[in-house]
């Protein structure tokens, strides 16, 4: 390991001429504003949170002990991950076909559809969540239609429960999934699918062997993005969930706003961060993200 590192350094020193080094400095200078902003607005507060989670009046691990010894916190963490997984899978199931349509229709129609997909971003998330509450209520439009069409005998409980949370979160996060997958699909040469057909592949074979693998980086990026955002979701579950649909972000808010136990809130935040990073590492092992992000030709 160490030997490898040294060889790499030696090779680097040999090949890097002075011009190359100057080029590296120039890149560093360009990155500097972003690095400073990150340090001031992200790294410093994060260190503060880390510090607070192990320090109140003196250094202590009491808050971590509390998290892992109280079943309710573990339940909430489990629920958070379960909800994030369901929302991610739903977004993928709905978003992949939509992205495919965006990537394959005529360019002018595609532009219109992309605007339609992005349109919700122009309104506040709170307004949109309240709109869903109107739609999904006991006497909301959705239930009225379901009953009128004979699809449900009585109003379905769509709000203030897990279903409401999943519907709301899927709605909010779907555009991100669609845009991420679409951006990859747009780069796929349509001639590749035609070539597969001309070589004898059925539509199913051409999709499975050519289109799906080529769009996989979009699936990987989209699911990762949606999953990580889901873990920290607050407004939608708070408004559309029931009393038992508590996500970890809501617990943190409660500690900050009501019990004013900032140290415990910090501890929960750190636990969320560590679990998120762990999830990222596992995911990275599974899909080899770095390989997907390598230059596609």
């Amino acid at each position, binding site marked *: 390991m160490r030997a490898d590192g040294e060889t790499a350094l030696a090779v680097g020193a040999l090949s890097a001429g002075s011009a190359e080094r100057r080029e590296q400095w120039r890149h560093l200078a360009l990155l500097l504003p972003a690095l400073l902003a990150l340090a001031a607005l992200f790294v410093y507060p994060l260190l503060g949170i880390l510090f607070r989670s192990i320090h109140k009046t003196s250094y202590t691990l009491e808050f971590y002990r509390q998290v892992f010894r109280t079943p309710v916190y573990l339940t909430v963490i489990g629920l958070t991950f379960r909800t994030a997984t369901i929302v991610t899978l739903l977004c993928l199931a709905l978003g992949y076909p939509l992205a495919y349509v965006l990537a394959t229709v005529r360019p002018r129609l595609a532009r219109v559809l992309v605007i339609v997909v992005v349109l919700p971003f122009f309104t506040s998330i709170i307004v949109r969540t309240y709109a869903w509450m109107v739609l999904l209520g006991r006497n909301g439009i959705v239930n009225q239609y379901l009953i009128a069409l004979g699809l449900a005998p009585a109003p379905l409980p769509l709000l203030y429960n897990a279903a409401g949370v999943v519907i709301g979160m899927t709605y909010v996060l779907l555009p991100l999934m669609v845009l991420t997958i679409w951006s990859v699909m747009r780069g796929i040469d349509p001639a590749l699918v035609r*070539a597969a057909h001309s070589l004898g592949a059925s539509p199913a074979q051409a999709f499975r062997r050519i289109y799906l693998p080529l769009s996989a980086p979009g699936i990987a990026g989209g699911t990762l993005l949606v999953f990580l955002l889901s873990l920290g979701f607050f407004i939608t579950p708070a408004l559309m969930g029931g009393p038992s649909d508590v996500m970890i972000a809501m617990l943190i808010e409660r500690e900050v706003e009501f019990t004013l136990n900032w140290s415990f809130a910090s501890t929960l935040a750190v636990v969320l961060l560590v679990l998120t990073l762990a999830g990222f590492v596992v995911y990275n092992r599974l899909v080899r993200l770095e390989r997907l992000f390598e230059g596609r030709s």
Partner: protein
Amino acid sequence: MAAAEGVGAGAEVRLQDLTKVFGAVVAVQDVSVTIAAGSFFTLLGPSGSGKTTTLMMVAGFLHPTRGEIFVDGATVAGLPPQKRDLGMVFQSYAVFPHLTVFENIAFPLEVRKLPGAEVRRRVGEALELVRLQGYDRRLPRQLSGGEQQRVALARALVFRPRVLLMDEPLGALDKKLRAHMQLELKRIQRHVHVTVVYVTHDQEEALTMSDRIAVMRGGRVEQVGGPAELYEAPVNPFVADFLGESNFIDGVVLTTADRRALVRADAGLEFWGVGATPLRAGERVTAAVRPEKLAPEEAPAPELNRCKGIVAEVVYAGDASRYRVSLGAVGTMTVKVQNRLASRQLASGDPVELAWDPAHTRLFPASVSE
């Protein structure tokens, strides 16, 4: 599949009244040609002439508005592309970027569920055919354009299709490599006896590679024939200009003798030529003369057409020189002269007498030239 090793049997392809309309635009109109089994056939035309649309209909990616396509006498109208058994090489190569060279070439065999040993043997043969042995584990992005082209070709031939369709396959290559690949393509075609339908806008490529060429314009076939026939006996000024290069002189027929006619150019010059169709005295014609048929001579033979002019411009191109010769009111003619050791270089401003054979002066009735 019964064909001998490395030898596919080419199929005859027949297009009958093939027409394709997109909205208000007629992209291809009444194209009827028969492409002999095992021949190299080129659809040649400028962009928008309908040549690629025609190819896409043969491949099955577009449905004809009207007309039929027969492969070995059987219509392919109801067949989707994957059931037509036609190999295709795309302009962009369309090599699968996530698959290795081996996997790319094995693809058509694997979707046909051939056993692994057979796949390996055939891919090996195909790699040898396009001279890419040892490249099987590389990814397309590690290959040059010419190498990717070869992969696309091997992939389109490995399942032994009866017909190979090629859509401007050499368009993206540089000039030297293109010339090399032209020879390679001909070698490979001779080896596998496949019928090739080739689309290009490059007249030189069409002339050097094809057994027969269909020149297209505005969705219609203007003329079908062998390279020499098209070059020496074009049926209209468009073909005369698109295939090679021509000097045009407008005039009126004075007298005729068999296919020959004496023409008086609008600016007064009189010369003999040969009609593309029978001509009558008094008919308006456009005469076409190739630059290399015009010769600057000091004492031209009496049976030749001739006229005096002044060298306006000289372009030295190594093997040959091109002169722009001003003939006064008749206009300016391009003259191409091979640079032989003995030939005298003309300079700008030199007076010159041009002579050319009436047999090399093609006359088109004005009605043909629109």
